[in-house]
Structures are given as C-alpha cells and as structure tokens.
C-alpha cells in the first residue's frame, strides 16, 4: 500500500474532461515519475493530491485513509509555475511559507539557516526576491518546498531554470531526501532524469492513465526482445531459423557488433546457445531495453 493512492479519480471543468478514471498507487520511499504530454492532466492530478482541487469522483488516500488538510501540511509542493512575493525579503518569505506549513517560528528559523548554508546562500537572507536572478529564486523556492521535512514532495519540473551545476545540486538533494525516507513525485518531461532517478512511473495521456509501474519492469515490457552481441570472428554470424534474425552487423576489423532479434518464445539462453554453436568468440551479450523516451513517444503517439 502506497503513501498516496488515487482511486478512480474523475475531474472535469465544464465540458472539458481533465482526468478520466485515473488510479495511481505511489509506493512509500520511492521517487515516482508522473509523465505525460502537456495538457494531459498531470497538474490537475497534482492539485487533487494537494487538495487544491476537489475531484468530481474518486478519492485520494494518504497512508491508507482519506487525505485531510492536516496531511497536506506534510506535503511539499513545487509548482511548475514558480512564484514568490517579489517585494518581500528572502528570509521573511521563507519563514512565512515554512510557518504556513505548520512549523514554529524557532524551528523554521533553525531549519532554514541549515538549508541556506547547505546551498551557500546565507547572505541572501535580507535580499528582496526581485533582486535575485531566476535561478537564485528557484533555489529559494526549492528550500521552501522541503524545509518542513515533508513525507511527500511533489516536484513539478524541478530542474527547469537551473544551470547544469545547480541542476546537479538539486538532483543530489532529491536523492538525499529519498534516502532519508521521503517519497517524491517527480513530474517532468526529461526522460533521462526519469531513467536515472525514478523507481516507478505513471504515464497520463489525454486525461487517461496509459501505464503505471516500475521503471525497469516497463522498460522490459516494452523491449522488443532484441540482443546486442559483440563478437570476434573471421566470418559473420549467420541468422538461425527458429532462434533469431540479424537486424544489423557492423564489422570493425574482425570485431563485430550485431543486433539480434529473437523469435517469439525464444529466451536469451536459447539464443546464446545457438550463437555458441557458430565459429565466433563472444565478447559481450546484452539485452537491449528501450529508452524511456522511446516508450513515451510510442505510447503517446500510438493512439
């Protein structure tokens, strides 16, 4: 049972359906990717989890019981459209947002100081937000999202607007928070970071849930049973009826890199045995799994 369970959520705005019977189970302690093209309904789902929007039907369970406003205090939310009070001092602003999340003034002050030191931005405390660059403001906003030690964080495109150095800083912080036991919902279009960070995903397209599950499991499920084989031999590998076909074979001074397409029902073991029966020396034998990016494009354009 996950920390967040969305059961059969429906939401429409007038005639426009934003979510159509969407059920997602987000396991505790994971980084969970919420994927989908623009306008698919991700933000609506995030707002429903945050209790900003009330669904027309279905329910959200937090730790197994219907979510309440008190639970929302344990969520940290970084919206895609960032925003801070422009005329307010960074420190005052961070204190305000922390206190809105239920922290005491003393607690908020101590925690914020720690985060400001960790991010190397101690001397911004007295600066006004309008004096900060976009990237600087993003750092402040990230801190205000996580300062109250939420057990669930919802980060919508957390890396956008950061330079590579700061994006790496944020990436490390996200992994560290996960290690500390937090659950993180990551909504992003960056499939590389999904492969790298996420344990599970849900893909929403046109208001409907298309697929949900573990990242590895999904990648294997959408693999088309291809093997990348590197071998050495004077003659090229021949395709074997009933076992595999050869999609490509590159010969580089006797060292070949080939892609084999296994026939239906054939296991990699069978295929390897077949290969070993031929006069070649096997250097490497690796299952080819598709990239998340390809799966995403395939699933979204298929319909």
């Amino acid at each position: 049972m996950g920390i967040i369970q969305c059961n059969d959520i429906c939401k429409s705005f007038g005639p426009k359906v934003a979510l159509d019977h969407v059920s997602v189970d987000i396991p505790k302690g994971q980084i969970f990717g919420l994927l989908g093209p623009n306008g698919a309904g991700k933000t609506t789902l995030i707002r429903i989890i945050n209790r900003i929007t009330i669904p027309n039907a279905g329910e959200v369970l937090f730790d197994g019981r219907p979510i309440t406003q008190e639970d929302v205090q344990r969520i940290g939310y970084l919206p895609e459209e960032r925003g801070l009070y422009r005329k307010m001092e960074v420190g005052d602003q961070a204190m305000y947002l922390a206190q809105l999340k239920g922290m005491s003034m003393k607690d908020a002050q101590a925690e914020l100081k720690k985060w400001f030191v960790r991010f190397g931005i101690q001397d911004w405390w007295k600066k006004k937000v309008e004096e900060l660059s976009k990237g600087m403001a993003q750092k402040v906003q990230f801190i205000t999202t996580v300062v109250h030690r939420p057990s669930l964080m919802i980060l919508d495109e957390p890396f956008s607007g950061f330079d590579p150095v700061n994006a790496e800083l944020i990436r490390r912080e996200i992994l560290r928070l996960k290690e500390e036991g937090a659950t993180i919902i990551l909504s992003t279009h960056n499939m590389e970071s999904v492969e790298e960070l996420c344990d599970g995903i849900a893909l929403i397209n046109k208001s409907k849930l298309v697929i949900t599950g573990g990242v590895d499991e999904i990648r294997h499920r959408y693999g088309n049973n291809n093997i990348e084989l590197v071998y050495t031999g004077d003659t090229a590998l021949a395709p074997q009826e009933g076992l595999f076909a050869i999609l490509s074979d590159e010969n580089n001074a006797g060292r070949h890199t080939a892609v084999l397409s296994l026939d239906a029902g054939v296991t990699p073991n069978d295929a390897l045995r077949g290969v070993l029966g031929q006069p070649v020396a096997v250097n490497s034998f690796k299952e080819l799994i598709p990239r998340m990016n390809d799966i995403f494009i395939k699933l979204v354009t298929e319909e």
Partner: protein
Amino acid sequence: MNFSIIKTIIGREYTTRVKKKSFLLTTFLVPVLIGAVAVIMGLIMAKTEDRAQNVAVIDQSGIAMPFLVSGDIYQFTDRSGESPEEMKTKIEAEGYSSLVVISPLDTVAKTVSVQIFSPKPSGVEFSGAVGRMVEDAVEDYRIGTYNIANLGQIMQDVKANVKVTEYTLDEEGGETISESGIYMMLSMILGLFIFMFVTMFSAMVMSSVIEEKASRVVEVLISSAEATELMFGKIIGVALVALTQFFLWIVLTGVIVGVVGGVAGLDFLKEQDPQQVMQMSGMSTDQMEALGLGAAADTTAVAPGEPGTMDVLTSTLSHVPWVTLIVSFFIYFILGYLLYASFFAAIGSAVENEADSSQLQIPLTIPLMLGYMILFMAFRNPDSSVVVWGSMIPFTSPIVMLARIPFGVPMWQLILSIVLLLVTFLASAWVSAKIYKAGILVFGKKATFKDLWKWLKMK
C-alpha cells in the same frame, strides 16, 4: 479553518504593509498636513483685521452714507465733497482699496446708482455688500416718502424677521456658522471618510490578491492554506492596517493640533473637555480646523456681549451624540469595508492585472457612487426618504448613515441598518469565497461575469 494558519497570514499581510515606506509616509504626513492647514487658517483669520479694506465713498445722493457701516472687513471713509474724476487718480496713493461713487438721487425713479472703482478687482462679495447697504438706504428713503404713521417702524420689524431667516439659510460673510452648518460639515466629513477608507482599503485587498495571482505565489499558498483562510486572512490583515493608521492619525493629529494650538496662542483647547477634543480630533481632523478657525474668529471678530462663534460651536458640538457617532463610525467602517473588501478580493482572484479588473468592478463602484451622491442629499435634507432608505440598504448604508447620525437617528433604525449590513456581509463572504476559490487558479484568460457566475455555482 485553521486559526494558527490564519494568524500567520494576517501577520504577513499586516507587517509587510506597516513596514512599507508609503505607509509611514501617509501616517505621518497626513496629520502634519492637517496641522499645517490649521496653522495657515489660523494665521489667515488672525490677519483679517489688518487686512480690512479702506474704501473711499463719494455720496452724491446724500442718503447712502449713514448706511455704509464700517466693519472688520470694510472701512468706509466719507469723501463726498470731492470730484470722482480726481479721486479715481489717487485711490492707491491715499491708501484706499477702492472708490464707491453713489449717483445723485433720481427723485422720479426713487433710486440711485452705484459705481465701484478699484485698481484690482474687488470681488463679488464686496460689490454685493455695498449693494445691499445702498439698497437699505434707498428702501429707507422710499419708506420716508410714504406718508404713513409708523411705517418706518413696521418695515423695520418686518425686515428684522426676514433677516433672521436669511441668517440660517446663507452664511453671511462667514460671520456665523449656524448649528446645522456644523452638523452638515460633520456629517459630510464622516460620510466622505467612510467612502474614502472603504474604497482605499478594499482596493488594497484587491491589488494584493492580484499580485499573488500574477506572481504565481498563490499556487504554493493554496497548497498550504485553504482559499477561504487566505482570503479572510488578507482581509483581516488589511483591516488591522487601517485601524492602526486611524489610531496613529488620531494620536498624531491630537499632538500636532495641541502643539499648534499652544504655539498659535489659540487657547480653545482649554475650554474643551479634553476627552471631547480627543474624540473630535479622532472623528474628523477637519473639525479641528473648524475649531481653530472658529477660535480665531472668536478672539478677533466678535464684539463683547454678542454670542461668539465659539459659543455657537461649543453648544452645537456638545449636542452631537459623540459616543454613538464614534462607535457607529467604527462599526460602519469595519462592516462596510468587510462587505466591499470580500467582493473586491473575489474580483482580484478573477484577473491577472489591475487593468482587467475595471469592468468587473462596475457593480461595486455603482453602489459606492450612489452612496456618495445620497450623502450630498443627506447633507441638505437628512430626513428625506431617499436618505433614510440609503442608510438602510447595506451597500450605501455605511456612507449614508454616518451622515445622518449628527442630526440624530432613531435607535431602531441604527440597529436595523447594522444588522442588515452584517447579514449582507456574511452572504457576500460566502459568495466571494466561492468565486475566489475557483478564480485564483484560472490563468491565461480574462474573466467575465459569466465566468464568475460559473465559479459561484461550482461545487
């Protein structure tokens, strides 16, 4: 509703505003300005005597001169023997501000004509005053020509009656402020204050809602607090700013007027019950000017034995129901503000910049302007039915009722009006919260009344 969160929201709304330079500036500058105006008015009044105009008169009719009575403002000198042409050339040289030439008596038409010559335009007031005095002379002459016993006496009696009526209707040369004049001024000022403050602070709530929406900070806020908490936290926070500003204005104006009074030697403060002075400075700062003005006139213009301006003022002011007035001022300000501020917050939630809000504001500015217009009617006739209705209908009552109170309002009407206002506020709060909740998250399109209606019906 989570009260500790509302408290946090109120705290931010309050402190960020009170810390602003513009807040400090208005808080300190307004009493200083009022003090400055009071000093200037005082000085002008004190100087009136010195500025009494010397007027040369050539009376060729032989009847007018006794009626040209010298006073504080005009000093008439009889130069009847001299030639008008010659006199004209030396008006300034002899220290006159103007020359009045009265023609020889036309015994057929039984009248005279008056010509006024002056280097600078002498003003309507002066020509009017001279005209009235000469008319008196001609009337007197005409009465004399009738051969009726005691006619002069009869006419005098009639005239005296007529004069009493005029006395109340027009304030002759600012000599006396009649009782209803003071009431009118007081009610006018109070009504205007409520109008101004309700408009000003409601607009402050609206632009603050728009700011949160435009800067997108609202999405984070709304994930921490409920929409209603945000809205009411903001409305209450701004209300506290308003009350702080009032309080500081009262104290500072009191201090400044006290100092000014001491420096200018206007010892009227001593004549007043100190508490009453405090109340007056709080109720209406202009009132203090009126006092300063009245006191200056008192010391300079009123002859011993006559009832002075100050006496009229004190007796009038002591008849004003101060406690009712002050309590009502705050009740009506707060309720009127809450009513309008909640609607303005809803409108703010529907737009992303102030320019887009003007169309949606129309249904709110119309009742406000209506209240403002009825206020002017109350000023003339506080018991007319439009005014009474205006003081009952919640959208205009905060402005109109305040204008009625100095003239006296039956308690049941006052209570009914307040209850109606309170009930309407509760309804407006409910409506506004619904619109606010939906509007605050709608971006990228200009909202119309249809959208507001749709949001209102949304669950």
